[in-house]
């Protein structure tokens, strides 16, 4: 596997400009001769589909939801970062770049991250022009707030529904192209395989989720914007349908999978309440702007929070990280919460929770200000827990949220399969070992609006593409394989449901491949995952038929792929013998319990190449070269 990141030459701040000046363009008259498949209609997919269609390409957009507007980007709450420096507080493109690199614990590619920071300001311009109703000052100008891991206030937001508003902006731009006939939309359609012809991505196999029909689509390039894989844990903040099947199928067709073990456990989620629980709900990190995190100083203290006096509370984030306080980055805040609970200071049922307290902020700013900032989050908290967070502190606990790992891509966002581009959370590119808050929205839209329109064009203009249609043998073979797989899932007819298996897999992952990992634990996980996967194929019960709307069948296919991916995650975590960002190996920590990187041996991207089901995958590396920043022990103290 050849890993050429294709980073343009020249100083960091000129790389993207140089690329844009030198990349090849497709002439306006020729664009309509090309067709592009976009899978996924979240921020990255919808913005890419809209922008490419505006340029004149023929776009087909696919999503498993009944409407593209429901993609899970919609659930992002807090905001989107951009280096506008509207606050005059010292922000700049370089600072956003630096904080993102540092936040990712120096495990991302400088050139990509710099470009992300560079285009961040254009994203805000584009979204405002689309009518995204961002929060404003009385002057009519845009308002900002702060997020974890940043010393400036650069986050733009629309109440607690920023993801929704940004997605509706991208969705409306795409729907305009649907109305103009430039995008053809395939909702309730799930990609189940990638078709590679002569080494290039040329199409996909899909299942119509209503009729069950399995069909194939050909194109000149394929873009996967299918999100992350945190649902491998079963319980996560992801939507129930979020899955890894598209990227996993691409991996099995030859795309390298980068840093699968880099996963983010978000510190502020509503704790689990029982075994029937189907998902975990996030409370936006923006709450840490005004909320103070604490636990009782006494172990196992069961008094009501109001009865615990000030001097018997431990505001542990403020104590341990005085310069960032409650706005310490996510990986650090999550580990600190887990440590508090593991040591017996946790609150609520099972001691699996810490307080997030707004009493001081309400005293300082007044309830109406807190209500204006976070009203919908407080309402959601009350709906789920039945508790009023204006009166009593919220209880929060970490939950799987985001995956920094994903398909390996070069500077052009192209995977190791020519013609297969990967955008948004589905790729591995920009967040290293830990993503900062409000940066996922930024990356999704940067990829879709401002990067892919150049790089896809460059690929098409530089590549001689043979005429290929769906009658090609590769399409027929891939289609037959998918059909066989569906039939196999239905034929097992065992005793246990898909959810039972998924829950069991999630428990292994949370216990052994979660926030804190050890070599022995990871090896145990590998054995357990394999055993459970075998049981799955012998004992799963998938009711219903193939040619019908069959939600259990949909889930079964996704869980089958999660089993294989889970193994790769554990394997990657074993091999990365250091701690960095969200990947915490107990063997590698500083005396005060922080992640201890090993830059001499692990300042690289680990890229896994599939070798067939019988052979273990091969681990390749892409060295990370740091020219603009100096590698430093990450400190938020």
């Amino acid at each position, binding site marked *: 596997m050849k890993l050429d990141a294709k980073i343009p030459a020249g100083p960091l701040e000129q790389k993207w400009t140089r690329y844009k000046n030198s990349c090849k363009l497709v002439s306006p008259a020729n664009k309509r001769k090309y067709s592009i498949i976009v899978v996924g209609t979240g921020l990255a997919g919808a*913005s890419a589909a*809209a922008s490419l269609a*505006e340029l004149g390409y023929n776009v087909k957009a696919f999503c498993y*939801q*009944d*409407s593209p*507007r*429901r993609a*899970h980007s*919609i*659930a992002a709450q807090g905001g989107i970062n951009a280096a506008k420096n509207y606050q005059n507080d010292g922000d700049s493109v370089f600072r956003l770049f630096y904080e993102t690199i540092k936040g990712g614990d120096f495990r991302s590619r400088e050139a990509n991250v710099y470009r992300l920071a560079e285009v961040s300001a254009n994203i*805000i*311009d*584009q979204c405002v*022009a*689309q*009518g995204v*109703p961002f*929060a*404003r*000052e*009385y*002057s*009519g100008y*845009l308002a900002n707030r702060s997020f974890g891991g940043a010393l400036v206030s650069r986050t733009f937001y*629309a*109440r607690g*529904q920023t993801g*929704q*508003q940004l997605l509706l902006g991208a*969705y*409306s*731009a795409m*729907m*305009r192209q649907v*109305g103009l006939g430039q995008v053809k*939309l395939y*909702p309730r359609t799930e990609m189940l395989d990638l078709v590679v012809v002569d080494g290039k991505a040329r199409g996909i196999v899909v299942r119509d989720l*209503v009729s069950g029909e399995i069909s194939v689509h050909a194109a000149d390039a394929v873009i996967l914007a299918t999100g992350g894989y945190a649902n491998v844990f079963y319980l996560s903040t992801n*939507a*129930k349908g979020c899955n890894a099947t598209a990227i996993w199928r691409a991996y099995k067709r030859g795309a390298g999978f980068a840093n699968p073990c880099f996963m983010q456990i978000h510190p502020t989620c509503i704790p689990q309440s*029982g075994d*029937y*629980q*189907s*998902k975990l*709900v996030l409370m936006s990190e923006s709450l840490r702007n005004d909320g103070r995190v604490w636990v009782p100083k006494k172990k196992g203290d069961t008094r009501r929070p109001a009865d615990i006096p000030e001097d018997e509370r431990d505001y542990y984030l403020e104590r341990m990280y005085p310069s960032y306080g409650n706005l310490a980055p996510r990986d650090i805040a999550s580990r600190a919460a887990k440590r508090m609970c593991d040591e017996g200071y946790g609150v609520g049922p099972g001691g699996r929770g810490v307080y997030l307290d707004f009493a001081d902020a309400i005293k300082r700013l007044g309830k109406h200000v807190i209500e204006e900032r976070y009203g919908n989050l407080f309402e*959601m908290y009350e*709906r*789920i827990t*039945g508790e009023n967070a204006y009166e009593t502190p919220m209880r929060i606990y970490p939950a799987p949220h985001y995956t920094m790992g994903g398909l390996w891509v070069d500077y052009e966002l192209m995977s190791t399969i020519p013609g297969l581009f990967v955008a948004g959370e589905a790729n591995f590119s920009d967040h290293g070992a830990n993503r900062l808050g409000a940066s996922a929205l930024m990356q999704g839209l940067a990829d879709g*609006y*401002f990067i892919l329109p150049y790089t896809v064009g460059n690929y098409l203009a530089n590549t001689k593409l043979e005429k290929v249609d769906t009658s090609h043998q590769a399409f027929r073979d891939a289609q037959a394989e998918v059909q066989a797989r569906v039939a196999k899932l239905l034929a097992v007819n065992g005793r246990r*449901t898909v959810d039972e298996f998924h829950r069991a897999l999630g428990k292994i992952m949370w216990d052994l491949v979660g926030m804190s990992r050890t070599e022995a634990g990871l090896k145990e996980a590998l054995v357990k995952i394999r055993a459970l996967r075998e049981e799955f194929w012998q004992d799963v*019960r998938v*009711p219903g038929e193939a040619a*019908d*709307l069959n*939600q*259990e069948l949909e889930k079964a296919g996704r869980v089958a792929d999660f089993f294989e991916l889970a193994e790769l995650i554990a394997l990657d975590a074993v091999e990365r013998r250091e701690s960095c960002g969200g990947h915490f190996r107990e063997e590698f920590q500083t005396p005060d319990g922080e992640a201890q990187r090993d830059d001499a041996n692990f300042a690289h991207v680990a890229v896994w190449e599939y070798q067939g089901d019988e052979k273990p995958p091969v681990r390749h590396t892409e060295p990370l070269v740091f020219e603009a920043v100096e590698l430093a022990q990450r400190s938020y103290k």
Partner: protein
Amino acid sequence: MRLTLHIWRQKGPNDQGRFVKYELVDVNEHMSFLEMLDVLNQKLIARGEEPVAFDHDCREGICGACSMVINGMAHGPERATTTCQLHMRHFKDGDVIYIEPWRAKAFPIVKDLVVDRSAFDRIIAAGGFISVRTGSAPEANSIPVPKEVAELAMDAAECIGCGACVAACPNGAAMLFVAAKVSHLNLLPQGQPERYRRVKAMVEAMEKEQFGACSNHRECEAACPKGISISFIARMNRDYRKALWKTKEFEGGKAEGISKFRG
């Protein structure tokens, strides 16, 4: 707690459909309504029956996928709450609950509780956007928007496109959905150039689908999980009347480019 459920089961669009009764004995008050249905489905699968199909995804009240009429009310008895955010603590032991899909001509039933809401997407495709190409946007702060206007636009923009308004309306009208999008964009300075073209195109697209007309029942507002106000309907009607007038004005004039309200 113990519940008796009567759930609408329908194999496909052409099947007759009927209520089927299920008894559930071990419901916990902390469960969400959908988790209660998950428990039922697990039992049905174990018994060799087909589970109940229903749309759901984010389960945190924002994607707009979940869509059930619960005891005659779209999204159930709690105000401003989607089905996925409705928790069983609002029901009591021994309750009898009727669960149906959205019922509206424009939302044909696909299977069980799943309906086809693609009419909403077609209305947005007709005009629910501001036509700004990627790359052509001016600097964001060059368009100041009064805070009050931005807040009001946001009130409308919160719509999650679930379709409860249509399901709750005795006429099966989509006025609240369309009005929310029209108002969101028509309130903002960025939306002014296409203001009248937009409202006309969207209302016409709405009328092409099988939605009914508004007769001020206000059921939509009561059912809306985001509490979107029907005052936006008045706003849309006002813009629509003006748009018809403007159409004439433009058509009588010489300005060729704007004589027809086309995208």
